[in-house]
């Protein structure tokens, strides 16, 4: 199955706002993407006047695994321990959509040609939507890196953007995946241990508040995200239900030779409009609500990770203090203990300072993103509901005269730019 997307700058389905203060000395975008059988190839285009790039404008082709490699490189880098690392984009997953299209192709003889065409259209739109979303997720990841004053200067980032060849980063094998999984368990256990460590007191109210806040916030936003997904699925379900109803009403209308004919056709037409409406509502809620909630779920996890690193640094500092005291009483290796303690202290303070800034940025990012998306959501809902309502022409009409329905050509909302789309190859 193949698909291409020509994503112009104005067509970006950006439900996530990147730091608006970022200057334009490094602009990154995904200018093209191709979906092949089991992978997606992203064309990453960079425009920059920064000195260490060879050219001012250049592109490379990257796959999902290379993005993950870049993300992990940041996470493992001690330099960035005091920063919120932008969450990695999720793996492109077309499985479900592909399966559905295949099942439709295998054929169900009981549905009419029109119904089949409509269902195919729905599924293709769904596939296209998933595709656009994965492009957006990968793009926003890069753009956040490019906008961050510290992260943008990373050497691996430059390599990622500039190196023409394949980065030869294979996907994690089972051992590495297991290792990652275990590391997470160890991390949570460690976190639990150090928080219960005696003598480890959080001196800063700010961080105390942030910790409580983030813990609760992360859980609740995850909940909200899951439930928003379910609502979206229900809307899609309804849209699918309308297809056979509309078809049955039309054929009932054809059979009648009396005034009932018009009534049936009118109802059939209404269901067809409602189908489109439900489809749009589903996609609006998906983009403006579900995706945003999902992103901030991941981002809040990244913020939690930062807090953990700082806590770890605090624990190390405390331990270094204890070791220094011990060394002083024994009067052995005092020098090493002193320098170690100073190191830990400086590290902790460095982390605390940058963490504070990062968390405040997180908040302002979050607020502006929610604001933008909630406004857009409301506007879209209104736009669609109004187009289907009594204002639209030919809506009610005189039952007996049977005004022919005016097919209103509805414009697709800006989050769904029409791209060049190839029919799936079975």
């Amino acid at each position: 199955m193949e698909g291409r997307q020509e994503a112009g700058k104005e067509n970006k389905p950006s439900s996530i706002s990147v730091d608006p203060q970022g200057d334009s000395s490094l602009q990154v975008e995904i200018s093209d993407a191709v979906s092949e059988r089991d992978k997606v190839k992203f064309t990453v285009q960079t425009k920059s006047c920064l000195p260490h790039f060879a050219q001012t404008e250049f592109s490379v082709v990257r796959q999902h695994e290379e993005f993950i490699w870049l993300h992990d490189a940041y996470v493992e880098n001690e330099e960035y321990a005091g920063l919120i690392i932008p969450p990695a984009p999720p793996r492109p997953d077309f499985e479900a959509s592909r399966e559905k299209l295949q099942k439709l192709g295998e054929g169900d003889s009981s549905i009419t040609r029109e119904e089949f065409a409509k269902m195919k259209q729905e599924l293709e739109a769904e596939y296209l939507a998933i595709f656009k979303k994965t492009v957006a997720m990968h793009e926003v990841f890069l753009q956040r890196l490019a906008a961050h004053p510290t992260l943008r200067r990373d050497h691996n980032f430059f390599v990622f953007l500039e190196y023409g060849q394949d980065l030869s980063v294979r996907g994690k094998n089972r051992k590495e995946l297991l290792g990652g999984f275990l590391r997470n368990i160890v991390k949570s256990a460690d976190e639990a241990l150090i928080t219960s460590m005696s003598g480890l007191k959080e001196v800063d109210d700010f961080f105390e508040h942030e910790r409580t806040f983030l813990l609760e916030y992360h859980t609740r936003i995850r909940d909200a995200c899951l439930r928003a997904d379910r609502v979206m699925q229900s809307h899609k379900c309804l849209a699918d239900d309308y297809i056979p109803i509309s078809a049955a009403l039309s054929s009932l209308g054809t059979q009648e030779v009396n005034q009932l004919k018009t009534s049936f056709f009118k109802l059939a037409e209404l269901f067809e409009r409602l189908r489109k409406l439900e489809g749009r509502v589903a996609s609006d809620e998906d983009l403006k609500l579900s995706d945003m909630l999902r992103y901030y779920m991941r981002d809040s996890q990244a913020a939690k990770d930062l807090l953990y690193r700082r806590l770890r640094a605090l624990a190390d500092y405390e331990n270094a203090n204890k070791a220094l005291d011990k060394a002083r009483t024994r009067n052995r290796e005092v020098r090493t203990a002193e320098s170690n303690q100073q190191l830990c202290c400086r590290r902790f303070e460095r982390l605390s300072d940058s963490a504070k800034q990062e968390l405040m940025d997180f908040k302002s990012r979050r607020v502006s993103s929610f604001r933008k998306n909630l406004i857009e959501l409301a506007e879209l809902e209104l736009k669609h509901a109004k187009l289907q309502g009594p204002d639209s022409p030919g809506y009610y009409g005189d039952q007996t005269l049977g005004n022919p329905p005016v097919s209103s050509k509805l414009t697709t909302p800006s989050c769904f730019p029409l791209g060049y789309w190839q029919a799936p190859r079975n």
Partner: protein
Amino acid sequence: MESKSISAPVIFDRSREEIEEEANGDVFDIEIGVSDPEKVGDGMNAYMAYRVTTKTSLSMFSKSEFSVKRRFSDFLGLHSKLASKYLHVGYIVPPAPEKSIVGMTKVKVGKEDSSSTEFVEKRRAALERYLQRTVKHPTLLQDPDLRQFLESSELPRAVNTQALSGAGILRMVNKAADAVNKMTIKMNESDAWFEEKQQQFENLDQQLRKLHASVEALVCHRKELSANTAAFAKSAAMLGNSEDHTALSRALSQLAEVEEKIDQLHQEQAFADFYMFSELLSDYIRLIAAVKGVFDHRMKCWQKWEDAQITLLKKRETEAKMMVANKPDKIQQAKNEIREWEAKVQQGERDFEQISKTIRKEVGRFEAKRVKDFKTVIIKYLESLVQTQQQLIKYWEAFLPEAKAIA
């Protein structure tokens, strides 16, 4: 959230057309309401009693407004009496609502939850529609059993309602139909009208069944949407509580409220989906089964006439044989039998012509009613869908400034 008190829409308002028909001589001045379901008794012997109120200006009734208490089996009893009297002569007797063991058991056992309230309401509405259809039938309206059902305060318990349920009658009708179909003798249809109509009803039946199945799926999924929306509203409210930015927190709470209101809309729409659309379809699916039943009765009538003719022929042959064999007492017997069967043949022909005439009239009346019913309901349903959209607009319009207020 308090549960909305549900009551099905009254579909049978006096429309302009009815008043016109009244002027033309067809008097429909009778309205039936079924209300106030009340549980009587306890445990497995408990039953629901419904109040049946009649409002009429017809002179055949002693009062202009009166009501009685009836239970479900009384309705089934009424239907079985009417069916046994009128079905086989070609009248389309409206079928009674279906029995439901599961639904009724829940009510008996005393579960006061929303599903048993829904069940009782569904049944009440169905009983009301059943009676309305029955009294709008000019012939059935004259029936003394119907009058007794509506008027008398005490009604003898209908026994053995197992066989008397609407489904039971239909099963009997369908068995008869199957029997007729299995007969090898093909009826010489002298009247193409009957063949056409039968085909028409067959098509209509198939399409209504298909549509009904799809609408049932719609009702189910809309209820799911409502439940999911309510769940999301709760989690949005929780998220709003967590959020430490004041304006955003408020906006999220507002979002939660909007979603709650939208959930309410979905519930109301699901209600309309069901009571207007789905129930109409299922009523007509059962009505068409009754129509098919009368057509089959006509075939059986024809068969009876045909058999009589064949028997008459045989008797005449016997007479001829007796004449040749010269057995005077046998000849007399044969002559008697011939007279007997000539009468039967004539009766058979009369019956067949009568049932054919009745069916023609009945089908005409049925079709007119069907068109009216569907039109009325479709308009009402369209209205409900449009109203839902209008409400949605109001809710989102109220929310938009809240979202914009996030500083």
